[in-house]
């Protein structure tokens, strides 16, 4: 009888927690931390032109899809997913190549995700122009930035985009 009551008490305690598994109050790993970016964002380019980003959960919440819209990039996609305790991304560049990058081991409290190049497809040579690095910085629930490093034969160029959550 004692065992039965213990089971009921455990079920009552654990049940509500289990029900919250899809929306954890606290990120449990680096990929979960990135999920707080889900939503619509806007930013201004260095040329003063506005553009937007939408981040949404896909594939039963196992991947994040970022869709970037600018006057030059129509529906440019970046996919983020967990790779063990690292976070991996593939950038489906509007230039037509697909660089892949990965962060080091990250955790639920990480604010700065540094993605380094691990390979790419449709890239004739390693010197062909491509995105080579991304530093994604979460400032708070309504602000984050992306600093992309663009690599080509003449060297590396960085561009930073500061995003504000759309209200």
């Amino acid at each position, binding site marked *: 009888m004692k065992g039965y009551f213990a089971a009921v008490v455990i079920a009552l305690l654990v049940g509500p927690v289990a029900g919250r598994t899809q929306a954890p109050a606290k990120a449990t790993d680096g990929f979960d931390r990135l999920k707080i970016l889900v939503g619509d964002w806007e930013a201004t380019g260095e040329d003063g032109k506005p553009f937007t980003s939408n981040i*949404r*959960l*896909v*594939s*039963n*919440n*196992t*991947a994040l*899809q970022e*869709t970037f819209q600018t006057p030059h*990039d*129509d*529906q*440019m*996609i970046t*996919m983020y*997913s*967990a*790779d*063990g305790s690292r976070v*991996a991304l*593939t950038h*489906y*560049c*509007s*230039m*037509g190549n*697909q660089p892949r990058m990965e962060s080091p081991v990250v955790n639920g409290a990480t604010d700065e995700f540094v993605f380094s190049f691990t390979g790419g*497809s*449709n890239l004739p040579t390693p010197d062909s122009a491509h995105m080579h690095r991304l530093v994604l910085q979460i400032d708070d629930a309504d602000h984050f930035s992306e600093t992309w490093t663009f690599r080509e034969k003449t060297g590396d160029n960085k561009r930073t985009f500061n995003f504000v959550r759309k209200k």
Partner: protein
Amino acid sequence: MAESDEFTGGEMKTKFEMMVTAAVVLALSTFLGASLGPLRAQTPDKPTSGFERLKTLVGEWQGTDESGKPVMSTFRVVSNGTALEETFQSENDNQMVTMYTPDGSRVALTHYCSKGNQPKMETPAETATTDEFAFGFTGAANLASPEDAHLHRLVLQIVDAEHFTETWTIHEKGRDTKKTFHFTRKK
């Protein structure tokens, strides 16, 4: 010259109606031309490569799995037309994404599986007339062991403009299982 001055009321009305009709036709053709122009530009008459051939799948599809349960799939062109995104919806898979891209004359895909791994596959060299795209496994992310359950092969068969099939091979602990989905374009 005199004829125009001697038009009766009926003739005048007929000429007026003709002018109005011509103006309406001109306005409509201008409007339709402007409206359809971008659509035509996005759907080229003839594909020029294997990847372009796959783009003929852009649109919304409904299908069934082998047990007869309904599934849905949406294809859209993204990243300035350089990638094709398939979003699959079933009872068990919520917004499961597969991304298709050209890799030279081959077509590559990454399947963002709802199981949480991301297998990558690639076809041999394809052409604009290819109807069967056989994607072979080239690697995966978030797969602890090669024997963990994952999608390992896809054969995508374009039957005609309104029908296609996908046969996925699931690999797990040395065993392969196939699942075929038949899709029909939504009207």
